[in-house]
């Protein structure tokens, strides 16, 4: 089985995301000076430089994906009813903080935070800084696909 989280965005949305995540090009360069081995940030910079030099591509679509290959059954726990509900709620409702989200879900804030961090590590969502240093969860993934072993669709889902 492969669990695939996919995000489709335009180049201009990607550039906005870079601004949010790193504070723009200067912030991204400082981030890389502090963490030179961050491959993804290095490639973010490469993409940023390319797309900044090609403004005619701003409406071009970029498709990005994270694929999870479960090795043990515990990996499937990302699809617990609570976590699915969390993703569903974030897909149609915005919250000012994790506490607000937890209250809406009727769950403990620490458990919700742990779930959000798990999805953040998969780049399924990200945190934006809100008032008084609060963290605002924002869903990035537009689709979640489960591809069973032996499925022909896995052949079509190229990682390149």
């Amino acid at each position: 089985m492969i669990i695939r989280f996919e995000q489709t965005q335009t180049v201009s949305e990607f550039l906005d995301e870079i601004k949010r995540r790193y504070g723009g090009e200067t912030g991204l360069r400082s981030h890389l000076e502090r963490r030179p081995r961050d491959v993804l940030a290095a490639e973010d910079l490469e993409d940023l430089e390319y797309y900044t030099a090609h403004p005619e591509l701003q409406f071009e679509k970029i498709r990005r994906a994270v694929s999870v290959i479960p090795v043990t059954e515990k990996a499937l726990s990302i699809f617990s009813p609570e976590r699915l509900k969390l993703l569903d709620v974030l897909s149609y409702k915005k919250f000012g903080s994790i506490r607000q989200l937890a209250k809406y879900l009727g769950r403990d804030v620490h458990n919700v935070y742990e779930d959000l961090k798990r999805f953040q590590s998969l780049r399924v969502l990200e945190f934006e800084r809100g008032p008084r240093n609060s963290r605002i969860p924002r869903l990035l993934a537009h689709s979640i696909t489960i591809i069973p072993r032996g499925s022909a669709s896995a052949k079509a889902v190229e990682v390149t």
Partner: protein
Amino acid sequence: MPHEIIIDSHHGTPHIHPPRKDGSPVDILARSMEQVREIVYRHSERKQNVVYQELLEELR
């Protein structure tokens, strides 16, 4: 043993994420996800574990 292997293709080239966030993602050879999945499954069945450095070599 890690519960899952994470591969991302955020920048075209696929990357494997080290289990337990132990380091940065590493480039792997571009191939279909089905091939990546089979390499991971064969590795974990053979080793009864995931030996990250060895898996990395198999995916490069």
